[in-house]
């Protein structure tokens, strides 16, 4: 199976690649349109902010490439948010592949932003991405913006408010947490995405 990681910038995308290596998959890091179109699985990682990330995808002429993909696509953290319609972060239009907005988390004195650390992610629908150990467990989150609960929500998490821990629409899926840093749950999600049978 060929897996590519879309190189849309971001300083630490290497760690997703290492997680895939732990699953025995060598993923190519690429911004080449043909390589992305040909891959069996496409992962859109990302850290940083939505507006510069979208600008980079435009500069790389990858917006239409990503919109035209029909194979399973997984967005991770910011990459998940880029799959959505619009983000409040920088008031930017995103790829529009999952029909939901991205909003800033409402912090309070007791609810610190960024939401940083281990929190519980719980599946709220039956979905192959969340089979087995990926359905309910502790995942590592680092983010200040989130997808509200809606039609695309596959799993939820709570930090002051309930938000989407995982979303999906057709072949496009995303997780707000970092599977590469989420121990057993993370490896289960990545394994499911690759189509492996749950261990």
């Amino acid at each position, binding site marked *: 199976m060929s897996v590519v990681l879309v190189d849309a910038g971001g*300083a*630490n995308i*290497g*760690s997703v690649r*290492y*997680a895939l*290596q*732990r699953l025995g998959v060598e993923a190519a890091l690429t911004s080449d349109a043909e390589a992305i179109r040909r891959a069996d699985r496409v992962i859109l990682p990302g*850290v*940083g*902010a939505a507006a510069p990330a979208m600008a980079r995808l435009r500069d790389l002429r990858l917006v239409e490439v990503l919109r035209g993909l029909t194979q399973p696509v997984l967005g991770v953290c910011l990459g998940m948010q880029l799959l959505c319609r619009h983000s409040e972060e920088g008031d930017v239009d995103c790829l529009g592949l999952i029909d939901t907005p991205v909003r800033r988390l409402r*912090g309070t*004195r*007791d609810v*610190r*932003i*960024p*939401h*940083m*650390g*281990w*929190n*519980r992610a719980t599946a709220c629908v039956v979905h192959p991405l969340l089979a087995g150990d990926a359905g309910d467990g*502790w995942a*590592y*989150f*680092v*983010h*200040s913006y989130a997808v509200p609960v809606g039609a695309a929500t596959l799993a939820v998490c*709570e*930090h002051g408010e309930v938000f989407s821990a995982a979303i999906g629409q057709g072949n496009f899926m995303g997780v707000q947490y*970092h599977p*590469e*840093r*989420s*121990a057993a749950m*993370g*490896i289960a999600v990545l394994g499911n995405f690759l189509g492996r049978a749950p261990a």
Partner: protein
Amino acid sequence: MLSRRIIACLDVRDGAVVKGVRFRDHVVMGGIVDFALRYRDAGADELVFYDIAASPAGRAVDVAWVEQVARVLDIPFCVAGGIRSVEAARAVLAAGADKVSINSPALERPGLIDELAGAFGVQCVVVGIDSLRDADGEWRVRQYTGDPSRTRTTARRTLDWIVEAQRRGAGEIVLNCMGSDGVRQGYDIAQLRAARAVSRVPLVASGGAGAREHFLDAFAKADVDGALAASVLHTGALEIPALKAWLGEAGVVVRA
């Protein structure tokens, strides 16, 4: 609900985990990757690697071991020591670290915090603060604490610096209370409470952990998001699984 983090701090030098008085009498305790996996298996929520040789030598962190750790570790980790530029931070993050922690370089040039936050996002930027109460009752920031011969008191009030660091883009504050550091008599709850009152980003307690009650105090009384510990974990005086189980029974939300 967001869990409270137990963070193991490891001093590294020349590719190994070491212990000893900083800058002298170092004893090699083992390999970095071995330690990382041991703590991961024990249930540590996060690891901090402090490159104790990088900063005084004026050189950047050796990224080879950062990459080795990133390859095997499936929990988050932060790298501290010797990061004084966007380029140095980029190398560490590109090698696979999730966060970088800066301390003295941020005091030398506070704009470094803004630059790192702008380049990588606030979630990657941890500001470490060494703090001690002075005779006049004020907590003030100390600089170059890694080297006792260079350590100096700055004019900055600790609470002012916490506020400024957040304004500039710190995504997390690690407050090392030097008065309690190394003596294992508990975290400095009064100081941490004061810091908590001015921190709207995650706050991590450091310095003084010696018993499980100290962790409970930090979480329950000072409402910190994480508690960092070194020697009490390295010596095996506290085992993380038992510590977490006990904290859980005491009502603290911890990752099982």
